[in-house]
């Protein structure tokens, strides 16, 4: 490890040191002022609004807003399905397959809320999408001229001319408010049909 470079003239060294202190301090003041200003306002508008929790999911549901309550309930709802001991989360296709199989075998009764389908058809799907960014592409494709076919077990297949194989599968959880969408090919590979 190299020691301090003492060969530089002391005056130049001090000047550089002084400019460094002034430069960092000036930027620091600007940064602190900006942060303080942000903290006085509604800075969370660009991030996510913090809220208070008592350690329950219900308090989280209240904190993040009513619209997302149904998605929050997903984990708990899936856990209650008899015989399903697999971890289930959105986008977890393997686990979703298990749930779908349960639905397929009629072990649980689900019904697609017509309002959901209607809002979907109207293009207001974003409020139902669990991750608009991740699924924007799939949903956008479904929106283009999709038709819906109902299968047993209240599984709805969306025929979309622009999807890879022309079809997507759509089904809901037991809350009747939540929509999963997976490509039909995955559904077939998983033995859903």
């Amino acid at each position, binding site marked *: 490890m*190299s020691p301090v*470079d003492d060969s530089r003239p002391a005056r130049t060294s*001090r000047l550089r040191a002084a400019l460094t202190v002034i*430069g960092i301090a000036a*930027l620091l003041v600007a940064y602190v002022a900006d*942060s303080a200003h942000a903290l006085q306002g509604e800075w969370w508008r660009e991030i996510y609004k913090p*809220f208070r929790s008592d350690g329950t999911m219900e308090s989280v549901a209240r*904190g993040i807003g009513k619209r997302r309550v149904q998605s929050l309930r997903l*984990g708990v709802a899936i856990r209650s399905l008899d015989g399903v001991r697999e971890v289930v989360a959105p986008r977890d296709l393997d686990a979703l397959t298990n749930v779908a199989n349960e639905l397929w075998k009629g072990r649980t009764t689900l019904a697609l809320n017509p309002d959901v389908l209607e809002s979907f058809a109207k293009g207001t799907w974003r409020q139902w999408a669990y991750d608009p960014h991740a699924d924007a592409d799939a949903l956008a494709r479904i929106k283009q001229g999709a038709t819906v076919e109902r299968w047993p077990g209240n599984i709805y297949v969306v025929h979309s001319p622009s999807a890879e194989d022309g079809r997507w599968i759509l089904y809901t959880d037991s809350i009747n408010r939540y929509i999963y969408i997976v490509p039909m090919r995955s559904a077939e590979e998983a033995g859903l049909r």
Partner: protein
Amino acid sequence: MSVVLRQLAVLVLALVAGWVALAPLRGRVWSPLYHLAAFPVGVLGLAFGPLATTALGRGHGLVPELVGLASFAAVTAAALAVSLRGAPRTAGRWLGEYVGWGGVFVVAAVLVLFAGVTGASNDSHMWYGPYGLLLADTARFTAAMIAARGHVLPAVHAAFASFGIEWPYSFYPMTAIAMLGALGAGMWRLLPVASARLRASIVAGTLGALCVSPVTLFMSVYVHSHIPSAGYLVLSVVALGIAAASAEDADACRPIAGLAAAGLVLVRPDGLAYAAVPASLMLVDWLRRRGELREVLAFFGPLLAVSWIAFGVPLVRFGLWHVPGKLGGATALAMLLGITLAPLAVVALSTFRRGPLAALAARPVAALGLVGAVAVTALALAKPVDLARTVSLMGSNLFVTGAQGWLWIFIAGAAAVTLLLGTWRDAGAWTRDLLLVVVEFLVVALLVHAATHVGRTGFGDSFNRVSFHVVPLAFWYLASVFGASASRLGRAGERGADESVRQAA
């Protein structure tokens, strides 16, 4: 038992497990580091209960979780005791220290618990929350869980769930407090400033400046991997810094750095890539000093043991799993092999006495730069559009669209001042190493995101959030140059700065 007491029980359990795991280091390492490392190391141990039940395919509930945690603590303590056998140990008032540090921890936890502030995004309530509940329910990791969210946080949520807490909001602020403690301790020990008053002012000012950012405040309560990742990265770098500066602490510091690096691996699926940051810092320092082989083992032993167990269990159980868009089993295995082979390659490199490889070994920072340049070039050839788009998004989010305010404008602007004026060279070797860490982190982040997911504009972008992990270390670098420069301005300070810098060197 009330919600507060149940959460407090889990937090204290993790602290005690960490104390036990690191017990052989007591008296052999700077006391604040031992106590500040205890909680994050104990948290790491929470993953071992579900790992055991996943491996055995049996067991369920609180008892296996506690047995797993206790086993982690006992095995870690035994391994450390064996590796440090014969090392001198100073006497101390241990009971008083435990009471003091434990008391501070409990008071902080109670304040956090009563404040009850938390933050959430889709990731929080769609992944971490349900995964924790389900892991508590099933006591089995799944490939998808590890691929999407890593080991530690589902296990932490599961541990709290076992105590009846669905949303462990207290864990994240406590991790933030532990991170700030480690950062403050590291700065106090390593700032190139002789004057205690100036040093104290700079440490307090840096921590205050860090905490005043809305990004830091939000990350401290955000139910996600960011504050734990930042905490493990800071702890690992602090321990390596103290090891480099103090020969008497070094042997006991490196295992802490290794365990913290393991925490980095287990806290996010891409943690396998970010572990390269402390690992390469360790190897650069070792190569520069031509240290002993046992030093490499002291760091990589804990890192590799924990990582191989954590990924070995799912690899054996599920094979080379494939989860679309997430960490695959083959990728995890390849990266584990990379982390395992890297120290062997560096040790082999150190044996060359002449030729281009010897020249590389003599300039470890240049060698690391070469590795980074090769990686970026390879990616540029393979995915030029993605790389360009990632660079564009990173810049856009850090400075304009990422809702970070002046945070990165300050960091980049102040760093530019130190680079343009050349004062970064005058603040000691450790300060230069901090700069190396920050730059390397950003390069790894660029590689990870360009190779896997390019991202988008806005706060929620992955890189935009991940960038926070290195913010504390960037502040430390700036504080270090600031301190050295401020010391140089006064005659007395100049002598002190030089002396302190030499000590650090």
